[in-house]
């Protein structure tokens, strides 16, 4: 077990009190992660279905894998949803994404900046984290999370879903509360 992806979900109420948490190994780096990796390692292009649902492919390109996200962006970075469909190797988007906003069923997406990898003992950890605020006026139950990254095909820019997980326990986020998702990519020598 030399390369693992872990996620952590923490739900807080409006006062910052932790209501629930889940910490487990991610079930799924998806096929798209490896398709982009292949395009870079082999310095070539390959087919890849973007989050739009269209196969626009992937080619070696500078922006590929970028999942640093600005506030209010829901097309890139860590994303969350309410879907429960089992993970498949060819998933190209979340089952039912929670969009940016403050309307019913929406959450505010905060900024997300991947941290510098850190080495401790024989591990090298690469952490990225994002918090989502629920100002929708009602409770929202989060059941899936994932990572969308930038990708470029031979002709078109787009986004690719490279990680998706269905949470073991649905996480109910109360109005005024938040959920924070951490993903840690760990390699161990």
């Amino acid at each position, binding site marked *: 077990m030399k390369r693992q992806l872990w996620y952590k979900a923490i739900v807080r109420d409006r006062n910052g009190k932790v209501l629930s948490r889940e910490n487990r190994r991610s079930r799924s780096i*998806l096929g798209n992660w*490896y398709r982009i990796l292949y395009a870079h390692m082999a310095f070539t292009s390959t087919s890849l279905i973007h989050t739009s649902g269209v196969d626009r492919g992937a080619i070696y390109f500078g922006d590929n894998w970028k999942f640093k996200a600005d506030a209010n962006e829901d097309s890139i970075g860590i994303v969350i949803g309410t879907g429960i469909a089992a993970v498949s190797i060819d998933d190209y988007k979340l089952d039912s994404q929670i969009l940016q906003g403050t309307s019913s069923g929406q959450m505010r997406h905060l900024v997300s900046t991947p941290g510098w990898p850190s080495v401790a003992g024989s591990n090298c950890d690469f952490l990225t984290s994002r918090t989502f605020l629920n100002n929708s006026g009602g409770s929202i139950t989060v059941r899936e999370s994932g990572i969308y990254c930038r990708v470029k095909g031979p002709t078109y820019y787009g986004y690719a879903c490279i990680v998706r997980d269905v949470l073991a326990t649905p996480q109910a986020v109360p109005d005024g509360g938040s959920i924070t998702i951490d993903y840690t990519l760990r390699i161990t020598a």
Partner: protein
Amino acid sequence: MMKKQDKRTERIAIEADRSLEPSLSYKVEVTDKDGRVVQLEEGPSHSYVRQWNEILHLQAAAIYIGGGGTVKMTNGSIEGNAYYSVRSFDSNAGIGIDRSGLRVGKDSTPVSINDYALGSPITEGAGFEQLEHQLTYFTSPVVAGSTLSFTMQRSFVNHSGATISGIQEIGNYIEFTGSMTGKVALGFRDVLGSPFIIPDGGAITVTYTLKVIA
């Protein structure tokens, strides 16, 4: 309530550990001058090293020129201006190129997360203790059931005039971009279970399979 949930998620995590893994494995094969296989080893790879995550970070965080990206190169020096680029993880080395792509060497020091090069890499050529580096060959990603995989392969031919023995390490040198293009870092390294011997006229072929299961 939280304790109950933590117990449950811990159990689920243990179960997940048993079943799902982005994996890297290798196969090393020596053939004699007539193409007969004379030595073979297959196994799980033991090691991505830190540069793999560091280069991924350059891409994921979109580290610009001057953004302070640091990656240790295979020559032991630090590239302090590494940034996200079209050329990252590039392992597509051509014939006769020994600065990047798959490499073999003679060192048996256990892998460390801080490794930045093979311990004793074999250089390109037909001279004493040298091997001729062939093209790095990739197969396209293939999905079979819930698995996606692709492979990279490279052969090294011994035209040195003598047997080369003691090949005990393999790894991949990946190109990334720093103050100039064409910087090279170690991506993964493995120490083989036993030393490999390549007869004169023979070859050693290294195949890595990168696989992920959903």
